[in-house]
Every structure is written in structure tokens, then in C-alpha cells.
């Protein structure tokens, strides 16, 4: 069984959703980025780490800030794999998912990119701008190498399309809570989001489905009965805030993740 599946199983046993964090590779420095991952792994069940692209067409302000900060510090794709590898060596059972835009995979070469993932023990991949069915081939390649390709669903996805995507999905699917870039304000009531979430679960109740976009410390409790929740912008924002206040981002981010976890435990 994949470590992603195991993580969900473990959370179900504890009757809580999985907590999935999102941070940007190399934010605010390569060292701190790894430190943050190592430190929040105590509270998070699955960790998403974004590899950088300077034309992110689906990211909101907070994550863009993190991305540009990291790019300015010279973080490369190679560095991202290094951070991933070091993290996985410290936390071999903690699932790590890389997330990013397709051009970096395209330039690296699909096969080469997957080889790099494998060597750094990456467990899964989210590719923001490679939707279904265009992602079919690549998702198959991932599967062959036992890397989870995470399919995305959104409020605009029709039921028919959902069925087809879920059929082609691996161990985890990601429901985008609302029409928004990352980091938007939650502009839809959680009740409405959960209605859509339940529609997905009805299609296949065994598929692990996480909810993300706009979820913060304030709203996370509303999703207590889901399979998992993703928090990203709030963490990126905390790094920015810590830097502005000349505080240690590692401790501050860890505190935040600890609190998030408490809310759903």
C-alpha cells in the first residue's frame, strides 16, 4: 500500500481528516524550507512542496510572494529535489507530494523528471495546468513508477466528467473548493463545499478526497468530517509575516500547523 493511502487509513482510525500542508520549496531559504518540513511533519499527515515557476497562472498573492522570494534566492528544480530527498531521508514514512506547473516537467523531460522524483523518494505529484484527459499518459507513467498522480476536481467539473476523472485517479483526489486561485478568501459557505464533496464521495466512497483552496485556521473545523484538508496560503503568509517581524519562520509556521491540527483532532 502506498504511504499516501496509509496516511489516510491512519487518520480514519483516529476519526479525523488528514492535514495536508503546502509550502514552497526554498521559502524563505533552502535551509529553512527543509527545517519547516521536518518540523511540521510532526503535525501534518501529508506534505505538499511546490517546485517553482515564475508564470504561475493559478496562484494567488501569498503563494506568488513565496515563489518569487524563493526564486530570488536562486532555488532551482535541482534544489527542490535535494530538499525533498533530505526530508524523506529524515521522515521515510511521511508522504511528500510535489506540486507545480507542467513547463518544468516538460523541460526536464517527463521520464527524467519522474526518475528524479523516484530518486528523491517523492510519493505523489500535482500538476496544476495538466488537466484530464491531457494528463492521461503522464498519469500512467507515474503509476508505473508507483508515484501517485493527484487528479483535481473543481466546482465547474460536471458530474459526467467527475466520474471519468475519478475512474482514472490514483490514491488521492483533490477537490478545489471554489472558483479561485490559491489563497483567495473562502467565498463559498463550507456547507456548499461539503455538498459538492459528498457528491464526489457518492461516486466512489473509497477514494480519498481532500479539500483545498481558501482553508484557514478559521474555517478548518467545518471540514472535520472530510478525508483531508489542505492549507497553503495561510502558511506562506505566516512566513512573510515572520520575516517582516524579524521572527523565526520555522517556529512560527510550526505553531500554526500545530494549531490547525488541534482544530481537527
Amino acid at each position, binding site marked *: 500500500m502506498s504511504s499516501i493511502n496509509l496516511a489516510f487509513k491512519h487518520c480514519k482510525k483516529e476519526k479525523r481528516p488528514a492535514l495536508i500542508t503546502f509550502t514552497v520549496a526554498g521559502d524563505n531559504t533552502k535551509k529553512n524550507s527543509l527545517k519547516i518540513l521536518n518540523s511540521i511533519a510532526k503535525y501534518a499527515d501529508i506534505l505538499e512542496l511546490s517546485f517553482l515557476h515564475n508564470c504561475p497562472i493559478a*496562484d494567488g498573492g501569498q503563494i506568488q510572494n513565496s515563489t518569487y522570494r524563493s526564486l530570488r534566492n536562486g532555488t532551482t528544480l535541482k534544489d527542490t529535489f535535494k530538499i525533498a530527498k533530505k526530508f524523506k531521508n529524515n521522515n521515510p514514512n511521511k508522504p511528500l507530494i510535489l506540486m507545480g506547473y507542467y513547463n518544468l516537467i516538460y523541460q526536464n523531460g517527463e521520464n527524467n523528471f519522474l526518475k528524479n522524483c523516484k530518486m528523491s523518494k517523492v510519493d505523489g505529484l500535482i500538476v496544476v495546468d495538466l488537466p484530464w484527459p491531457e494528463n492521461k499518459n503522464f498519469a500512467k507513467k507515474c503509476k508505473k513508477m508507483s508515484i501517485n498522480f493527484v487528479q483535481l476536481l473543481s466546482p465547474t*467539473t460536471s458530474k459526467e466528467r467527475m466520474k471519468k476523472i475519478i475512474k482514472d485517479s490514483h490514491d488521492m483526489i483533490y477537490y478545489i473548493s471554489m472558483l479561485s486561485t490559491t489563497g483567495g478568501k473562502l467565498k463559498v459557505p463550507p456547507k456548499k463545499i461539503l455538498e459538492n464533496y459528498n457528491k464526489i464521495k457518492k461516486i466512489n466512497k473509497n477514494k480519498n478526497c481532500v479539500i483545498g483552496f481558501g482553508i484557514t485556521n478559521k474555517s478548518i473545523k467545518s471540514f472535520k468530517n472530510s478525508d483531508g484538508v489542505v492549507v497553503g496560503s495561510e502558511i506562506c503568509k505566516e512566513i512573510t509575516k515572520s520575516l517582516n517581524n524579524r521572527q523565526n519562520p520555522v517556529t512560527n509556521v510550526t505553531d500554526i500547523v500545530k494549531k490547525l491540527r488541534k482544530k481537527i483532532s
Partner: protein
Amino acid sequence: MKIKKNIPLIDQHDKNGFWGGKFGGSFIPETLKKPVEDLTILFEKLRKDKNFIKERDYYFKNWVGAPTPFFKLRNLTNHLGGAEIWTKVVSEANGGAHKIYNATVHCLIAKKAGKKYVVGDTGAGYAGKMLSMAAKKFGLKCKIFMGAKDIERQKPNCDAMRKNGAEIVPVYTGSQTLVDAVSECMRYWVSNCDTTHMCVGSTVGPNIFVKICGWSTSQISRELFIQIKKEFGGIPKKIKLLNCVGGGSSSFGFWNEFMHYNKKQIEFVGIEAGGPIKSKRHAAPLTYGSKIGILHGAAQYVNQDIEGQIEETESISAGLDYPGVSPLHCFLKDAKRARYTAASDEEALKAYVLVTKFEKIRPSLEPSHAFAEAIKLAPKLSNDTVIIVNSCGDAHKDRDILKQRLGKL
């Protein structure tokens, strides 16, 4: 890679939206899948609808102003010797540039889709100005995304947008130019695709936006075809169609009707922005052999580093200052139907000075790049060759830059 006969170039893509098997496509977030599909279905329906075509032609004729003038530049031809130099003054269209065709069609589509809001990107400010004009004409609320650097250097067009009631959203990320404006506009659409129609300002972006824009600007060559036949009593044996290329909407529209002619008879020459002579940050991915990458939802030749980060560009003309280029032009290049070259900032300025000295037209900095190539080519060619330059923008918007660089107007 081959161009098919009897099928419009915009339709020569495969089922995944790729021209020549590798340019274009739709690399978009899941949220945009449905809006893009809806738009695709609507556009395919409308372009077959006689009433819609009638409506388009009505506005092109009575509001945009068709046809735009076509005439010989006698003084310039006499001065340079060699080939005849002609121009189609597309900048005589309402608003002062070819961007009006795409903007008009997008607003007509938005109305049919029942949308009340329209958003768009702009570099030189023309795409934004025209969208604001069309939005006003058709009763839509309009928001324009524009890089902060471009807002500063293209003030007259910004004034026009505001006068038309559009909101300009300044973009401060990255190089603060067109590339960032397009990204920000797409982000806005992701968040508002239920109420808002998006217009991409050139033949770039996800497949459907390339198609709508190319379909719209093709009006230019439909007019030119008739005008050439009238002036020459037929199609001359040696024609060269010169056009500047940023995203590629004006050049594609200038060439489309002549696609199936032998290139020995009608040659297409696209002129990209070479940037300042001393700079390496050109905006000429076709000329300088950039690699294929994905930018703004489509695969194309694009300036990028080895890992896939998009590189900043530098050009005196905001309209050409873009690291990528239309998938249609990538296809035309690889199919060897069109040839691409670049003019530097300095060459474009020199061309502007020469053209305005001899003729009554005032091409903006974008078409001045194409005139630079015409000036280079004409003396080397025989007088039975006809060079036609698309003067697709008016220099009014460039008055600050021209004053600064030339000291006078």
C-alpha cells in the same frame, strides 16, 4: 510539418488542440476546463451562423471602418529604389490599431454568452483600449490588466481606457509588462469565470483564444486581397507581406487569406523585436531559436532558461515585448511558410524617422519594426517586387518615448 490546403489554418490542429502536433493545446487549471469548453462550443456555433457573420460584418464596416486604406508609398519607394513599397494602414481602423477586430468579436461573443463583464490583458495598451471601446459599445463592464511599466510608457492609451469607463488593474509582479498582465488576467478569470468573459489580446493563450483572435484579425487580409486585385488588376508575381510579430495577431490576420499561395509568389516575413542593440534580452523567440515551452496555456517557442523559467524581455515597443509567440506562427515557421527576423530598437526608431520624413503616415513603434525590414530589403530587390507593410498601429501612443529618444516629434 505541412500546411493543409482548403482548411483554415486556425482549424488545422489535432483533437488536443495542437498545430503541427506540438504547438498550442490547452494547459489550463481544471477550473477553466468547463468555461473553455463552453466558449469553444459557442464560438464554433457562431462562426457557422449567418446572422452572427452579418452582425460581425456590420460592426466591422460601420463601426470599425472597413476597408482600411491601402496605397503606395511613392516617396519612400523613390528614395530607396528597388522594390515598390506599399502599406495597408490598419491603424486607420477605429481606435488606431488591429486590436479592434479581436475586441469587437469577443464582446459580441460575451453578449451571446450572457456575460456582463469582460476582462483582458494589454501591453501597448491597444488591446485594452479597444476592449474598453467595444465593451462600452455593447454595454459590458470592462477590466484591463496591464503591467505597471507599460502603464507608465503608454499613457495615452491608458487615458482612453479610463475615458471609456474601464478599470485598469496595474500588475506589479515580474517584469511588470505584458507577460505578467496576461498571467494576472488569467488568474482573475479562474476566480470569476462564472460571470466574466475573458479576452486574450493576441493569438496566444489556450487553443480557443488563438482561434478566436486569428479568425477576427483575418478581416485584414480579406480586405487586402480585394484591394490588391483592384490596384494591380490581379495578384502580382512577387509580393512580400511584412508585419511585426509580438503575439502574432496582426501578422496572422495580414497573411491568412494568402496562406495557400506559393511562398515564391507571396512571401510572409514576420519581424520580431530584437530589443536594444546591446541587450541580449530580445523578444524574438522565432528569430533566435528559442526552445518550445508552455506559456499562458499553450506550447510555443518561448524565451526561457534551461529549467523552464520564463525570461524577461526588453523592447522599446510594449506591444512586441513578450517572451512567447503564437502557436500559429511556430507552425508557420516549422512548415517553412513564413520567415522570421528581428529589428532592434534603434532600427525601428530609424525607420520611424525615415517613414515619417517621406510619407504622411505615422506608424507606431511596433510596425516601425516591419518598416525597418522593408527599408533593408527594398533596395536589394527588383522593381517588379511589391513589398506591403502592415502599418497596424498609430504613433500617438508612443509620443513620450519618441520625444525622449528623438528629442522632438
